[in-house]
């Protein structure tokens, strides 16, 4: 179904296995073919997908929606008046909003570069969730559950679609965070995320420790690993059923291939100086820009789901200063990513998700804003999401989602839909019942599908 559209990526996906001066043996080629039928092999979606890959820009700490993508003129008018939402006074946004693009979407001055892509953005102004504590809410955005250990949406996507390139991990997280949010839980272990680079924003590509062997050549290592896998398969036979042993078999295989694929993938410095500059690499946005560029390179090579974590959005005080800072760090690189994907004709197949774990209060808390899970904004771009659109709305002050409300479960259902997966059919049997990402909830927001 994608044969024609992905020639460049197809070439890259094959190419990476051959780079690095390590010859492919006949054996490895056979193995690569075998993996096409294994648990990570590319699978048919339930219906024609709009997106093949996802890049999730996860803004930790909860960005204020009323200062970024949810324009609330009434809040500005009522600024300083006692709110009806608790004892504090309403606080209008200190930032100016303007209309952008042919669609005329209202976007605040904090995102001047992203705003240039207004006609590609689908602003979801009616998000809401169940927890206004950071960690449970972050977990809910990933797994749909506040409390239980459940598979992450990246793991579900990989489970549903498999991977196009068994030489790289199918689900990657850049920028750190808690492992529990990226877990496969009861899904087989090989669907969990591989975290790369931690949150160490130093110069140069992220570090993948131990990426080379200094004691034997590739053929010899292949023979050694064949012996390991023989032992492991015997173990699996004795275990009869063991997700852990299966996970070790898969991760050993992936590790072998990553030795050649990862140095090439992570070598973003091979990009043109213009590209590097557009992502802000070498400037203030180095860390986040690097991750955005790497995300593009990953998607290009067939990584199914990439998540980039960016922190420090919890602006209880000094909203004006701090929000300016965090938006400034991310605006340029996000815009560069959108442009880059467009230039490569990849945006139509890559779903970009942007958002925090909840939003912030319309009322002030000193010179900042408190937590608010009743109403907040995320946006989508590419991957079949309708551009230049504003979906749903909060009330006149941005306090609560009131129109076309989109719960986190609905958001998950819609994301799965764009990937060609029916969230009600994407199930996994565990403990005597069929589990799914959306539990027993979730409605697809058909209106936003382009």
């Amino acid at each position: 179904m994608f044969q024609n559209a992905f020639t460049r990526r197809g070439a890259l996906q094959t190419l990476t296995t051959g780079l690095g001066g390590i010859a492919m043996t006949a054996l490895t080629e056979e193995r690569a073919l075998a993996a096409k039928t294994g648990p990570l092999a590319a699978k048919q979606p339930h219906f024609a997908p709009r997106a093949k890959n996802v890049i999730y820009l996860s803004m930790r700490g909860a960005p204020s929606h009323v200062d970024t993508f949810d324009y609330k003129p009434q809040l500005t008018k009522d600024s300083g008046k006692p709110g009806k939402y608790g004892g504090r006074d309403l606080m209008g946004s200190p930032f100016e909003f303007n209309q952008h693009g042919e669609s005329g979407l209202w976007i605040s001055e904090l995102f001047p570069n992203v705003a240039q892509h207004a006609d590609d953005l689908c602003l979801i102004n009616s998000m809401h969730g169940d927890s206004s504590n950071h960690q449970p809410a972050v977990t809910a955005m990933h797994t749909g559950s506040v409390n239980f250990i459940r598979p992450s949406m990246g793991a579900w996507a990989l489970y549903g679609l498999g991977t196009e390139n068994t030489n790289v991990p199918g689900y990657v997280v850049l920028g750190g965070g808690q492992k529990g949010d990226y877990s496969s839980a009861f899904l087989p272990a090989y669907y969990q995320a591989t975290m790369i680079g931690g949150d160490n924003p130093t110069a140069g590509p992220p570090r993948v420790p131990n990426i080379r062997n200094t004691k034997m050549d590739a053929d010899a290592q292949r023979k050694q690993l064949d012996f390991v896998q023989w032992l492991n398969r015997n173990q699996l036979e004795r275990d009869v059923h063991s997700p852990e042993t299966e996970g070790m078999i898969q991760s050993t295989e992936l590790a072998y291939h990553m030795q050649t694929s990862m140095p090439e993938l992570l070598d973003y410095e091979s990009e043109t100086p213009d590209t590097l500059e557009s992502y802000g690499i070498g400037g203030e946005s180095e860390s986040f820009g690097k991750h955005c560029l790497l995300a593009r390179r990953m998607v290009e090579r067939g990584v199914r789901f990439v998540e980039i974590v960016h922190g420090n959005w919890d602006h209880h005080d000094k909203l004006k200063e701090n929000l300016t800072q965090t938006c400034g760090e991310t605006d340029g690189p996000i815009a560069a990513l959108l442009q880059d994907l467009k230039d490569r004709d990849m945006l139509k197949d890559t779903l970009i998700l942007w958002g925090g774990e909840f939003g912030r209060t319309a009322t002030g808390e000193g010179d900042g804003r408190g937590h608010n899970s009743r109403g907040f904004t995320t946006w989508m771009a590419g991957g079949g999401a309708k551009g230049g659109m504003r979906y749903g709305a909060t009330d006149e002050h941005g306090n609560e989602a009131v129109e076309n409300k989109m719960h986190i479960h609905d958001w998950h259902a819609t994301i799965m839909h764009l990937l060609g997966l029916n969230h009600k059919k994407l199930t996994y049997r565990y403990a005597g019942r069929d589990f799914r990402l959306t539990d027993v909830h979730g409605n697809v927001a058909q209106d936003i599908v382009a």
Partner: protein
Amino acid sequence: MRSFILFSLLSVFLTNAQSEEAISPEHLDYFETHVRPNLIKYCYECHSVEQGESRGGLYLDTREGMREGGSTGSLFDDENWEYSLFVDAVTWNDPDFEMPPKQKMPDDVIAKLTEWVKMGAPDPRERETFEVEDSGIDIEKGREHWSYQKPARPAEKSIDAIIGGMQTEMGVTPVGSADALTLLRRITFDLTGLPPTPPEVVAFTKAFKVNREAAFTDKVDQLLASEHYGERWGRHWLDVVRYGESSGTLNIVYPYAWRFRNYVIDSFNEDKPYDQLLTEHLAGDLLSAPNDETRQKNLIATGFLALGPKKQNEKNPQVFAMNLIDEQIDTVTRGFLGTTVSCARCHDHKFDPIPTADYYAMAGIFQSTDTLWGTIAGNQNHRTTELLDLPIADAGLSEDQSNLYEEKVQHLADLREKNREMRGMTGGKGGKGKGKAEGAAPDKDMLEENGIEQRDLVRIRQQIMRTESELEFLNPDGSEKTFAMGAQEGTVENSNILIAGDVNKIAQEVDRGFLQVLDLTDAPELPTDESGRLELAQWITSTQNPLTARVMVNRIWLHLTGSPIVETMDNFGTTGLPPTSLELLDFLAIRFMESGWSIKTLIREIVLSETYQLASTYDEAHYAKDPANTTHWRAKPRQLDAEALRDQMLLVSGLLDRTRPESSMAYEAGNSRLGGRRGEGEETFNTALFRGRSLYLPVLRDALPDELGLFDFPDPQGTVGQRSTTNVAPQSLHLMNSELVQVQAEAMANLLQNRFPAMKEQVSNAFLLAYNRAATTMEIDHSMQFLREFDPGEPPVIEPAALPGPGRDRGAMKGKGKKGKRNEPAPTTEPTEPLSPETAKLAALCQALMMSAEFRTIH
């Protein structure tokens, strides 16, 4: 540090009345005419609640703010007004301390302000006060939650009987007992974190044949008595108390944290009653001790309060103090009580019956305590304290340093001399006490003439400060002072509620106390002249407390079975999950308390149950009903954790040093700073060649060694009840390519070759070492074939700079260790002879075994 809430705010009316008496009409008039307008004009922009700015942690918009001062100390010198910091700042006498920084105030304004200080700085301004309304939480109703009610004695009289009931209900049956070798490997790992050795395998198999029950019981008792027991179970506990040897963020090393680690290990080995353990953690310094040894241990125990993560670059001392208290409350309540009290810092707990007032009642106890974590000033570290000076000095710990003290004294003298020269003997203003002379303002023209820049002066002052700090760690005879992190009594005071946790929004005072939801009839009264930490410990360890025992037995159960009874290990509140069997939880909790809180007794009871000794055999029908194994129909196969995996590798390679190191690499590094977020660190650690047990590796926040961090060792930012278990490619890469694993594989090959001449024997013994079982014929054949065919070939030559691998991303090592010998880069490999082809082949086989699933799993 903690004086900021000294004043009491019983009511706005009362404080106003006091202040009106305190200031005369003349002074009031002077203040309003000459002082307030100028403070507003020149100071409030950076130092007021209104502007939300408190540069240097200083507020100048209230009398209290001015009296408290900021991070550089008190503004007023009551004895010599002319030496007041405030006067210094506004007169621009000190080049490093000129306020306002950009533009000096006009001379007449300075004169008026100086005159005001001379009057005694009379000030009518009141800090705005707040009143928090009574909480609407229905505490009585909140007490109905299962975990806030006392454990009930179950009808069943044993673990197996209770679990039998659960199984019947679920419709499953246990799979049958494990065989001798599986059981031996399991129990040895579970109790000591190590695998059995080949002689132990032989002896146990023999005894097991004679009498299964006696053999196993003997083995359990032998392992519980082993010193490795305390290392294993002490390490479990260190996860709970977020043990770390650096601060995170700025990442300042804690060189003395290891004493607490050793104290924990010793406590578990001597089976210290759990109630006593907790009491020592919270209030060891307040316990009477019959001798110096006990006193020493009790003091070290309070390190618990000090070794949490800290942001020492925080400039506002009040914010720092409240964050420290919050971190302590969080660890105590989640770690010991499975309760998330920290949620109530900013507002009443949204789900559990914990009003904000309860949080500040507990905060008062820690506010009345001085927490001592040490570290030295400079390098953005604004938050240092003294340390506890222990009664018994370390013996043989330090190298001969008789010259070091003298060298440092001389170095300090040289620095001071140089500083004086640079500033010019006559250039500076007269000295005003320690440290002042060095900071005195030199003649600016003189500086220009000599080409000396301001930053040279700043640098030399920092060197002086640092050397002074370093000297504080030495005795005059050159030996190191025997310091520990810990806590001691501070000024006893209650805490005030802070609205939304904001240190500027101070509401009413609350009496120090405990959580109302746990209403114990034997709750102790809080003394007026002590912090109340001892009473807090008594309240936590009361047998009436429904949480303490339950939370701990759940932890023990997890470590022995892999399936906790309450899945939310550190949250037994209403947002946590209910127990899979309250009966089992209560049975264990009651047994635990009735045994006198003996952890070993409880472990022994659990492992001697039939449930523990089950095989791990898979059963499709049972799995379909109970995949999480909550009814324990089989033993759950468990992946080895980071420490056990590494220890096992070192054991089978013969390189493991089973003795406890004297201290820690963090101690060797001394007062230093790690590679921080921006790679500006000073200290890195090479752990690949360390041969001690894994729990003695340096536990550095944000910078864990790969052999820990890659394998789910928790970064100790807070209590961790249950570690994640991941299974990802970076772990495989470590096993395939890391120096650590390669060294072990080669050592294991050498060991086998030295002992067994025949290849076949080498192979069979490799399996016995790695898997604690005999190899099958097929395994031997396959291995022999591997050895015959394997050829390492030509390993690729690697240009480190061409790879996005280790070394490029981390700050280069710039050792500034106290012993001055860390400047030599640590060797990355031991100088070894090239391997013979036979050894290389055998090493490849040994490494394959170390990578395999069986090696990494307890069945």
